[in-house]
């Protein structure tokens, strides 16, 4: 386990700038989640740390020493690929044992057998150990690919959307399992996901990437409650944050052109009246689609609400987030 420090990392692929000037410290034992849409540079960051690509400039330090000149094998990192990348000509057992049989680790066979059995039972693939990797379902392949990382105790686990193709129940279980590994072993994780629940529940830190730049780095709460821009604000929150003209509810703060309202920023029962367009019952929550003076917004309501489309509902903002014309947060 080790601290990983990225300093001023820049990487281009041809004319596309994948990462520019990214600096980030992944503290020892932390669980850092990277957020951002496709093409923001999340996977590139993982690949640069793993050593699969070389940065154009900047440095990657693991446990205090630069690894930029090292081969991936020398860096002692484990990576779970989005495309699973199981070795198709091997059985599940051999896939899991592969890192332990490498010339670098070269563990004795009885230890390998024990370790593989442990990991397989944690990931519920023990009954598939003698299957060919190609005979598995998508979810099973993904678990094997996570398992191939977990058999080792690397300095950092790099995971690129490892739970994306699992069903909801298994995803929830593995989320807890990964969190347990993080806590029990004190392992360091750098984790890419699109899933808000994963980000909020697992992360100790969240980094938000936008077009190859790190725009904010902090705890999940900080990112959620104090986003530096409209871009960061839209990364987290279900339903998404609503952006409305700054003067919709009265005089705007100086310089502000829009306000950001999360459901908890919307007080119901007082203020101007909005029309209910649609009521979505999701079970644990109910979403209200509202229309107010030419603007659409979505908020939450009590699951047992009696509101129906066409009703009027008075709403008023409370402690909203203020943003200027270019989307930056105002203090």
């Amino acid at each position, binding site marked *: 386990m080790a601290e990983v420090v990225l300093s001023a990392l820049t990487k281009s692929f041809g004319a596309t700038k994948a990462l520019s000037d990214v600096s980030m410290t992944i503290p020892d034992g932390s669980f850092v989640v990277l957020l951002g849409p496709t093409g923001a540079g999340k996977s590139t960051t993982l690949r640069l740390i*793993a*050593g*699969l690509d070389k940065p154009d400039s900047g440095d990657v330090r693991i446990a205090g020493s630069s690894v930029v000149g090292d*081969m*991936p*094998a020398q860096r002692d*990192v*484990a*990576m779970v*690929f989005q*495309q699973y*990348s199981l*070795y*198709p*000509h091997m059985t599940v057992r051999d896939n899991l044992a*592969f*890192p332990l049989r*490498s*010339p*670098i*680790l070269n563990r004795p066979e009885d230890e390998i057998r024990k370790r593989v059995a442990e990991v397989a039972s944690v990931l519920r693939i023990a009954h598939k150990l003698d299957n060919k990797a190609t005979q598995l379902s998508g979810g099973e392949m993904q678990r094997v690919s996570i398992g*191939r990382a977990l058999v080792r105790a690397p300095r950092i686990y790099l995971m690129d959307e490892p739970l994306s193709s699992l069903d909801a129940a298994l995803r929830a279980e593995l989320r807890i399992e990964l969190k347990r590994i993080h806590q029990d072993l004190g392992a360091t994780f750098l984790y890419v996901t699109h899933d808000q629940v994963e980000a909020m529940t697992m992360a100790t830190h969240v980094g938000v990437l936008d077009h190859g730049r790190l725009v904010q780095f902090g705890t999940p709460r900080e990112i959620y409650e104090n986003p530096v821009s409209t871009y960061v604000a839209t990364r987290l929150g279900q339903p998404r944050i609503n952006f409305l003209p700054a003067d919709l509810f009265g005089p705007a703060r100086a310089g502000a052109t829009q306000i950001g309202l999360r459901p908890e920023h919307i007080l119901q029962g007082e203020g101007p009246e909005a029309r209910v367009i649609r009521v979505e019952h999701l079970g644990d929550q109910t979403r209200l689609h509202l229309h107010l003076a030419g603007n659409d917004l979505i908020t939450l309501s009590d699951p047992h609400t009696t509101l129906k489309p066409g009703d009027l509902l008075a709403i008023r903002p409370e402690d909203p987030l203020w943003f200027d014309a270019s989307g930056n947060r105002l203090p």
Partner: protein
Amino acid sequence: MSAFSVTEPSARSKGIAAVLVFLYAFITLLPLLWIISTGFKTGPDSISYPPKVIFTPSIEGYVNLFTSRTRINEEDRATLSPPANFAEAIVRERDMVITGPSRFGERFLNSVIIGFGSTFLSIFLGTLAAYAFSRFRVPLKDDLMFFILSTRMMPPIAVAIPIFLMFRSLGLSDTHLGMILLYTGVNISLAVWLLKGFIDEIPREYEEAALIDGYTRFQAFRKVVLPQAATGIASTAIFCLIFAWNEYAFAVLLTSGTAQTAPPFIPTIIGVGGQDWPAVAAGATIFLLPVMIFTILLRKHLLRGITFGAVRK
């Protein structure tokens, strides 16, 4: 509801297809059947007119193929001890004695050494080159690939004279090494192009995973890429072997003794004591066997190799 089905052809069309396939197979296999059967005929049967389809089989052709013989006269024959084995007995009936083994064995062995040697070398070099072209940023990659392909655009025999002169001054004429190098040179362009196609189909992520799992690039190549390229390697090997095995023109030109392969040797059998068609046919039959066995062994890979790009992903 009509009986028409997209997936299942009707019994009638299946029947027609079967007849066509059978006819085609019969027509293509007819020369092969003729050669194999001629190998088991006696000399007179092999040239009888109309040709004999039904005949009494004899292994005279095979005996003649593997032996050198000389004619003896009546008195000498009487002084000889009784024939020691079946081959001797067959030869005696034609007023001849066996003087020793023929050259066919060595020539056949030469074909094996040169054919498999050059196939191995083509595949070994071709796989490494194809991997490099597929995965690394090679300067002038496209030009180099075209250059490699261009060596295939001209019939090799067109450069026979320069090669003959080169081989003579390098001392490669009539050597196994010379023939292996020559066939490798001809085959390697095919090997690089075919294998590059197969390796391109293997996603890079597998190697990247292996690199992270603690392996060097060469180890990743050996443990992850090679097993997955096995299909492509097998089908490329068949193509290379068939070329090297059957090659005639260069073999005639560049070999005469030590390194002569079977193709230029087999026709020379005909000159030993009249037109010995059964011996020629026997030689051709034995010559066919290794490639046939090799192809049948790798048949599964060959079929998968041909459809490789189509079925994957």
